[in-house]
C-alpha cells in the first residue's frame, strides 16, 4: 500500500478534525509534497464548511452579546490631557462644521471624551457588571445608528430659551432606532431632564426618552421610536421633571420639522 493509498483512508477523518495527532502530523507532512492528495483534501473542505449549519439553530441568550463586545473592547488609553482638552474645546465648532462626520465623532469617542471611564471600568472589571454592559451597548448602538443612518442628519433648531444649542438627529426614514446628539444646551437644574418628543401627523407627541447633559451642555440619546422616523412630522426637546412627563410641560429648547 503506497503512502497515498494509506493516507486516503484518513482524509475524511482528517478534514472532520477526528484523527490522532500522530496521523495528523503524517498527513501534514505529506500534503505539501503531493498534489493529488492535496486535491482530495480540498474536495472535502466544502462539506466541512457546511456541516456547522447542520446543527439545529438555537438562539444564544441576549446578554451574551454584551459580554462578547465587552471582551473585545479596545483597551482605552487616556489621551494626553492637553490634547484631550484641545479636542474638547474645539468640539462645538467642530460639530457645527459642515464637514463634521460620524467618523470624526467616533474618533472623539475613541479619545475618551464620552466613555473613557466607562471603558476603563469595563476592562478592569472584566465585564461583570450587567448595568455597565447595558450602558456600553447603548453607547455602541448609538454610534452604530449614527454612523449608518442613510442621508444627512436632521438639524434641530434652537429656540430663544437655548439660543446657542445645536442638535442633530440621525436615523433612516424606515428605521425606529434613532440617535440624537445635542450640544450647548443649558445645564439642568437638579431633578430635571431633557425629554425628546416625536410628533406625528395628528400633532400627537410621543416620548422618545430622556437624557441629561454634562457641565458643558452636551448630551446624547438613543431613541427607540414606536414607529419609523418617516412616520413623524417633527421632533422637539423640552425640559421636564426627572423621569419624564407623559406630555410636554416645560420650555422647548430645540426642535425641527421632519
Amino acid at each position, binding site marked *: 500500500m503506497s503512502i497515498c493509498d494509506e493516507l486516503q483512508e484518513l482524509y475524511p477523518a482528517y478534514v472532520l*478534525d477526528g484523527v490522532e495527532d500522530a496521523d495528523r502530523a503524517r498527513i501534514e507532512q505529506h500534503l505539501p509534497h503531493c498534489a493529488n492528495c492535496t486535491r482530495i483534501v480540498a474536495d472535502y473542505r466544502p462539506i466541512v464548511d457546511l456541516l456547522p449549519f447542520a*446543527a439545529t*439553530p438555537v438562539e444564544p441568550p441576549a446578554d*451574551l452579546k454584551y459580554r462578547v*463586545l465587552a471582551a473585545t473592547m*479596545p483597551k482605552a488609553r487616556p489621551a494626553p490631557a492637553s490634547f484631550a482638552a484641545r479636542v474638547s474645546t474645539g468640539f462645538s465648532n467642530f460639530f457645527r462644521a459642515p464637514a463634521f462626520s460620524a467618523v470624526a465623532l467616533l474618533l472623539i469617542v475613541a479619545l475618551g471624551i464620552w466613555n473613557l471611564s466607562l471603558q476603563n471600568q469595563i476592562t478592569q472589571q472584566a465585564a461583570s457588571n450587567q448595568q455597565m454592559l447595558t450602558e456600553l451597548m447603548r453607547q455602541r448602538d448609538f454610534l452604530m445608528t449614527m454612523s449608518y443612518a442613510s442621508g444627512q442628519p436632521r438639524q434641530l433648531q434652537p429656540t430663544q430659551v437655548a439660543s446657542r444649542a445645536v442638535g442633530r438627529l440621525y436615523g433612516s426614514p424606515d428605521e425606529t432606532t434613532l440617535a440624537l446628539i445635542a450640544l450647548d444646551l443649558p445645564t439642568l437644574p437638579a431633578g430635571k431632564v431633557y425629554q425628546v418628543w416625536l410628533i406625528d401627523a395628528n400633532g400627537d407627541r410621543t416620548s422618545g426618552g430622556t437624557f441629561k447633559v454634562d457641565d458643558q451642555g452636551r448630551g446624547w440619546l438613543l431613541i427607540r421610536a414606536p414607529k419609523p422616523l418617516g412616520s413623524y412630522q417633527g421632533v422637539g426637546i423640552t425640559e421636564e421633571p426627572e423621569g419624564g412627563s407623559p406630555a410636554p410641560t416645560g420650555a422647548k429648547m430645540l426642535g425641527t420639522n421632519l
Partner: protein
Amino acid sequence: MDYSALTDEEIIARLKNGESWAMSVLYDRYARLVFSLALKILNDRGAAEETVQEVFVKVWKRCREYDARRGKFSSWLTGIAHNHAIDELRRRRVRPSASEGDDDAMDTVLDEGPAPLDLAVQSLERRRIVDALRGIPQEQRRAIEMAYFEGLTQQEISDRLGQPLGTIKTRMRLGMQKLKTLLEEPAT
C-alpha cells in the same frame, strides 16, 4: 450606508482597521451559528456560551491572520469554533448522549420567515447540508457526525459501534464522496 449590506470580508477589513463596531456586526451575523454548533457538540448551554465568547475574542485578536483569498470568513470562523468546542469536549470528557438531537437535526429545517439576508442565507446553507446528509446511508452519516460533532477518531467510532476499523473508514470515505456529489448538484 447600510452596514448589513457589507460582505463579511469588508467587515473584517474594518475590524483589522481597528473599527470595533465591526465586531458587533459579525456577532449579529454569526453568533447563532457558532452557538448552535457549540451547543450541538457540547450539549451544555453554559459551555456553548463560553465557546461563543472565546471564539469571538479569538476572531478579534486574530483577524489579521484571516486571508480572504484562502477561503470564506464563515469557514474560518466555524473552523475556529469547531476546534474550540471539540477541544473543550475532549478536555471535559463530557460526551453528549450519542443520539440525542440527531433526528431533530435531520428533520427540522427552520422556516425563517421574513429574516435578515444573512439569516436567510444561513437557512439556505442549512437546507443544502441537511438535504445532502439525508441523501446518504444512515450508517455513513452516523460515522461522519460522530467524527465531526463528537470529535471521535475512526478508532473510537469503531470501538463505540463495535464495527471493524476498516468498515468505519470505508463508511466515512463513501459518505464524504457521496456528500460531495450531492452538494455539487444544482439546488432544486
